[in-house]
């Protein structure tokens, strides 16, 4: 028989020391920012490939770009970053950037026009998911040696035709525009991958921070770059911890073990509202929730029916109940804070008006199918929609499926009605205008599954031409006006009922100042943060 006594005694002793070890820390160190966030969407840290939220959060703080957004004034639009200035050629096709002098990468190498040339060419040649943001300007692996060219201290990029300068520059502020340290990256090249494998888990930038470690589903640790050209950041270390549970994030925040909790659900937000030492921030994000009507459907394609259905959505009821604090009413395809965004919201639940319109169209006993992905909030919206549509005598059948099933049918134009979300891909109005209001060939042979207008078999009633014109307009203010006009017409005639824009609510210890999450157009910035 084993003598259990000493082992038992040891176990009791260990438990006792555990219970008395009380490192109950009241707050995090003054030079350290600790954030709880869900980071399981990070697949790579390579700016030429990264296309997820948590990845963009890292990239924005690690890589400088030619032009960038000022975290403390996002509405000002793109500003000089690694490029100090730029000129546009007569024909509007070539932009020539003059590089800022005296900026260095984390390795100590100077940032040169050659690095910028390499970084942008690299994006085109690797052709990873987000590459379309740049290839839409006509860059191909074959022509980059002529279209993206460094010369001394300048870099010229030449597009295949004339585009609005603001369009090109907005696209360069996306993660994909990150400038990497050519020398360091090429030292780690394997089998001609231009350092893609190495950059997936390492960083070589010139930004305010570099990545010290990334443990998937566990944490990302950033350390500050004391030589950052805008000045050394106050936070010398930024630790982003992966905390899945909202309740756990809340506990950590209340205890002061973290500074910021980014995934609190509405219950936990109301739980910490008014708690001493904690503030709640609301920030608009780019994601939109919309309902769209397939124009191949004989009834749904009638103008009166389209309008009637926009009156059969309980926008306010949903915003104030189950979407409270998560979504706000927004009825246009450009998210608020985008260039050219407008805040017209003419529709609200009006059953009588809808009935009149349906009667005028001679519609009776309509039964339609709405396809929705298996996500709680979307299903709840579908149920609300089902109830309000029933008030006007329209029967709605909800089909819930996986992303693959529902998207598959949506892309094949098989759904009567689709209910889902759309997130902008890059910080320029064309990202949404080019899909909601642009459809040059509506035939089924065109197979333009990437365009939302095509998926709904909608010929856009002239908006395609207006959108094409807005993309090449050189003057930024005129261009913003044009998007306003497109959206007003879109509100009236489109088969899309855009309903909501995403809000992100964040819990923050109130000693943390100047934390900008990036709004709808960019990602979080840690360098201005102070405590």
């Amino acid at each position, binding site marked *: *028989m084993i003598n*259990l006594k000493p*082992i*038992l005694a040891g*176990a009791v002793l*260990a*438990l006792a*020391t*555990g*219970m008395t*070890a*009380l*490192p*109950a*820390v009241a707050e*995090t160190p003054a030079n*350290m920012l*600790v954030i709880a966030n869900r980071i*399981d969407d*990070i*697949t*790579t840290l390579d700016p030429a490939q990264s*296309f*997820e939220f948590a990845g963009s959060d890292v990239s924005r703080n690690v890589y400088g770009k030619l032009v960038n957004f000022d975290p403390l004034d996002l509405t000002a639009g793109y500003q000089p970053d690694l490029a100090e200035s730029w000129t546009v050629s007569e024909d509007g096709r070539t932009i020539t950037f003059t590089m800022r002098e005296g900026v260095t990468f984390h390795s100590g190498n100077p940032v040169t026009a050659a690095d910028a040339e390499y970084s942008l060419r690299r994006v085109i040649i690797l*052709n*990873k*998911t987000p*590459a*379309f943001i740049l*290839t839409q300007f006509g860059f191909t692996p074959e022509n980059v040696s002529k279209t993206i060219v460094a010369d001394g201290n300048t870099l010229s990029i030449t597009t295949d035709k004339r585009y609005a300068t603001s369009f090109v520059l907005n696209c360069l502020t996306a993660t994909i525009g990150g400038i990497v340290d050519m020398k360091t990256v090429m030292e780690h090249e394997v089998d001609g991958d231009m350092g893609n*494998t190495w950059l*997936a*888990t390492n960083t070589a930038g010139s930004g305010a921070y570099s990545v010290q*470690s990334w*443990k*998937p*589903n*566990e*944490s990302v*640790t950033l350390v500050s770059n004391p030589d950052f050209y805008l000045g050394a950041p106050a936070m010398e270390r930024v*630790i982003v*911890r*992966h*905390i*899945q*549970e909202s*309740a*756990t994030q809340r*506990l*950590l925040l*209340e*205890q002061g*073990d973290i500074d910021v909790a980014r995934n609190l659900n509405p219950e936990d937000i109301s739980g910490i509202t008014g708690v001493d030492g904690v503030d709640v921030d609301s920030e608009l994000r780019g994601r939109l929730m919309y309902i769209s009507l397939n124009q191949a459907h004989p009834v749904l394609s009638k103008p009166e029916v389209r309008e009637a259905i926009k009156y059969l959505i309980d926008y306010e009821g949903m915003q104030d109940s189950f979407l409270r604090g998560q979504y706000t009413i927004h009825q246009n395809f450009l998210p608020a804070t985008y260039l050219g965004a407008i805040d017209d919201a003419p529709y609200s639940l009006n059953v009588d008006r809808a009935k009149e319109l349906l009667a005028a169209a001679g519609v009776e006993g309509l039964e339609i199918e709405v396809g929705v992905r298996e996500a709680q909030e979307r299903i709840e919206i579908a149920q609300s929609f089902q109830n309000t549509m029933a008030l006007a005598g329209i029967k709605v059948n909800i089909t819930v499926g*996986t*992303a*693959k*099933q529902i*998207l598959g049918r949506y892309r094949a134009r098989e759904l009567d009605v689709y209910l889902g979300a759309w997130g902008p*891909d890059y910080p320029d109005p064309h990202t949404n205008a080019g899909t909601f209001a642009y459809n040059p060939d509506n035939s089924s042979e065109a197979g333009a599954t*990437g365009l939302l207008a095509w998926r709904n078999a909608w010929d856009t009633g002239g908006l395609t031409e207006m959108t094409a014109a807005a993309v090449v307009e050189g003057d930024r203010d005129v261009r913003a006006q044009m998007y306003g006009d497109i959206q007003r017409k879109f509100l009236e005639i489109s088969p899309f009922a855009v309903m909501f824009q995403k809000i992100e609510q964040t819990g923050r210890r109130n000693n943390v100042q100047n934390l900008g999450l990036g709004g709808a157009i960019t990602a979080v910035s840690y360098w201005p943060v102070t405590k």
Partner: protein
Amino acid sequence: MLGLLFITFIIGRVMPVDPVLSIVGESASKETYDAAYKAIGLDKPLIVQFATYIWDVITGDFGVSLLNARPVADDIKRVFPATLELATLGTLIGVFVGVPLGVIAAVKRGSWIDQIARVLALVGYSMPIFWLGLVSLLVFYGILGWVGGPGRVGIFYVDIVPEVTGMILVDSILDRNWEVFRDALSHIILPALLLGYYSLAYISRMTRSFMLEQLSSEYITTARVKGLSERAVIWRHALGNIKVQLITVIALSYAGLLEGSVLTEIIFAWPGIGSYITTALLSADMNAVMGGTVVVGLVFVCLNIFSDLLYKYFDPRAK
């Protein structure tokens, strides 16, 4: 093992999740999609894919995660020790509390101790671990501040001790860094107690019923008649005879914890193998799922062999 791999492989291939879509995202161009499709070998026949995989596993290569392009073996090396540490401590608590509790409950059948043990076990069986975890976190961390919060160590102690085993408690002892040890202990104690409680519930009930069977046997009466002390009768004779059965029970409960208890890991932000496999499964990262499954399978096999060895040691008949 081969059967296990085969089933996991097939399930992974028929799942209605598109691994390529989850890698490249919805807005990828056709060329990008096709390139990724080829890169992960989905264009080859199923049988070829399976054979390639088996060969790689035998040579110690679990492939790279489809999502984050890291070697799966590296990821598992990181997450498994976290689970091992937690499960071991949980099982120790389960054994050192559960076995004596079960014995006493059997000896004092019907007494208040027996009743308490019964209620404890019932609650342990039926209480959702998610709820219990959150409440205990709220009470002991949030209100009382007796223990460290979620995560393996406080942020001050991250990456301080050199990694040898990956188990922070062990590594800090090897490094003689008692501060880190105390902090790690204060973080692990709550989830370990929670898991310990669940395994205690099971172990104490099983111990009680094994003991009852023994206590009514004739050899026990004989021993008592011989004038042996009650203590010797119970703890040496009766308990000695159920050792082999107990080992099976403990090994099973240990193996259960080693699979990783997903909910506990999520609440306590514990980066273990349970949440690793779950995340991988949800994003259709089949290499990671298979890697995790192989490791869990191996653990079962090893524990089986180990308990067989223990039988031989304890049971003279098996020699």
